[in-house]
């Protein structure tokens, strides 16, 4: 099947604007600006059922229509702060198919009538930032962005803003704070960014992949698009596969068309060294761990936003990390919690103190100096944190602990009883 998002896999040199144009690039923008009103664009995107690809899966068109009427200026911010461990789809898009992203921003900006759009890109992606700058310069030269887009009276400036190393800035209000030149700490919601966002103005924030779907929808129509995927999760999705597989990478497939089994054994070429699968992290470090050992059915469920709920997990941004049979889950949980401890912004107490605390306990257990009570303690701390933090980071940080304790409790206990890690002995 042809790629709709990762089109660079089908077309060489797609980052070159003339190549992109030859393959129908910017036709969707032309169609939107010349033939459609902003509200029509929003309606089409609404009708397509496009849901945000950043993890939460909120319908994009609905988000756009939340902006309060008549309040200007408005801003569009493309969230390219892709920092979830195991996620690397946006980077590939920005480096190799930047124009589709730029076109998506332009169409979305037109739909919400914003004249200043920002791309907040991770500081760790210098090359992707360069690619975007180049793409924007080329697009401006050909009149796709800048003053009077395609000769219309609509003007748009797109600014690339580089982050500087803070996972939390992927959270949309922290991202706005950061873009305003402050410490990237989440705001208390409500008010939501749609009404009080960047510089206290109405703001739409969309993920890179989400925006890349927009040109496709405009070009081929909502009806065509909505047929891809499942009725509730429409369109194609990019799955990031990493960890102990033979062929890690980005794989595009319609929602509800593939299972973990397809992804790992078909796309990913199976587990490295022919080993057995032990566990899957479906949403980077943020989603609770799944394991066929606990419930074999998980391997064959067709993946969409809601598919993993019955298994107590979520698909999120579909960053699938695979762990083989020789991996120690205590060590893996420690790694992930340490990540969250490092990335906690410090604004709210449960996350600031809880990640610090969980990290200390997991270090203890991993080093073989924990006590049997520590397993309940770390799970208890995680439970205390759940639902009590300002933003999802705090909740996410409990996933590696709660997920792994639930499935692999005896492994924790073994660590404590044997005073060390079985996998490293």
């Amino acid at each position, binding site marked *: 099947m042809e790629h709709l998002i990762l089109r660079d896999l089908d077309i060489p040199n797609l980052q070159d604007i003339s190549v992109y144009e030859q393959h129908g690039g910017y036709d969707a923008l032309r169609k939107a600006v010349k033939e459609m009103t902003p509200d029509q664009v929003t309606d089409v995107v609404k009708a397509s059922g496009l849901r945000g690809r950043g993890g939460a899966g909120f319908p994009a068109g609905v988000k756009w229509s939340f902006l309060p009427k008549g309040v200007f200026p408005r801003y569009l911010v493309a969230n390219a702060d892709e920092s979830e461990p195991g996620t690397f789809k946006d980077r590939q898009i920005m480096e190799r198919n930047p124009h589709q992203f730029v076109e998506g921003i332009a169409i979305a900006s037109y739909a919400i009538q914003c004249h200043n759009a920002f791309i907040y890109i991770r500081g760790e992606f210098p090359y992707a930032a360069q690619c975007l700058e180049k793409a924007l310069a080329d697009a401006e030269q050909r009149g796709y962005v800048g003053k009077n887009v395609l000769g219309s009276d609509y003007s748009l400036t797109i600014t690339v803003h580089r982050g500087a190393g803070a996972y939390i800035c992927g959270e949309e209000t922290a991202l706005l704070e950061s873009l305003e030149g402050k410490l*990237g700490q989440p705001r208390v919601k409500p008010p939501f960014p749609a009404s009080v966002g960047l*510089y206290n103005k109405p703001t739409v924030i969309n993920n890179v992949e989400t925006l890349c779907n927009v040109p496709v929808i405009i070009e081929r129509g909502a009806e065509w698009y909505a047929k891809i995927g499942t009725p509730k999760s429409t369109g194609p999705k990019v799955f990031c596969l990493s*960890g102990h597989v033979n062929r890690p990478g980005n794989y595009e497939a319609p929602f509800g068309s593939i299972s973990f089994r397809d992804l790992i054994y078909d796309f990913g070429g199976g587990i490295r060294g022919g080993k057995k699968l032990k566990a899957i992290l479906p949403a980077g470090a943020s989603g609770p761990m799944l394991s066929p050992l606990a419930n074999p059915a998980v391997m064959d469920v067709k993946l969409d936003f809601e598919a993993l709920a019955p298994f107590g997990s979520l698909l999120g941004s579909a960053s699938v990390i695979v762990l083989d049979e020789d991996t120690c889950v205590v060590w893996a949980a420690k790694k992930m919690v340490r990540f969250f401890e490092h990335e906690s912004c410090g604004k709210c107490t449960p996350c600031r103190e809880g990640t610090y605390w969980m990290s200390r306990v997991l270090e203890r257990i991993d080093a073989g100096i924990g006590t049997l009570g520590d397993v309940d303690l770390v799970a208890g701390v995680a439970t205390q944190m759940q639902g009590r933090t300002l933003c999802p980071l705090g909740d996410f940080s409990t996933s590696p602990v709660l997920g792994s304790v639930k499935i692999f409790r005896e492994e924790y206990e073994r660590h404590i009883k044997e005073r060390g890690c079985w996998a490293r002995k």
Partner: protein
Amino acid sequence: MLSQQAKSEIQQLMTKYPDARSAIMPALHLAQREVGWLPDDVIQEIGDLLGLSKTEVNGVATFYTMYARDQPGRHTIMFCADLPCALRGADEMLEHLEHKLGCRASQTSPDGKITLQEAECLGGCNHAPVMLIDGAEHAQDLTSEKIDEIIERLRNT
């Protein structure tokens, strides 16, 4: 001290945003590229340009991990040790790297040439393990041979 050109570039940046304060992060990036790190006087200069106090700029500079408030070596390596990389041998690579450089993470090699930092996910999990050199260049699919090669190159430049 910032060059005149850097200062005018920062002033240019300030006009790109509806609120000049937003230029603080790009200004810090720019200053770090020019000076190599962010000493106190540079923080002060950026504050003066943006109309903010030194401590306000410092607050931002200390929140984000990519800004160096301590003087690093000539090169900086950010090494990812997160789970996806670790599953593909990052811990061993890091040990190798530490051995090779003669310093631990968050330290600078004794010859003062290379600073080693542990980073959080660098978005290259499909080519793990990954490291970022001088905040500009991704080195992917690392092996100990590849690391040795890179270190040699960095030591000589």
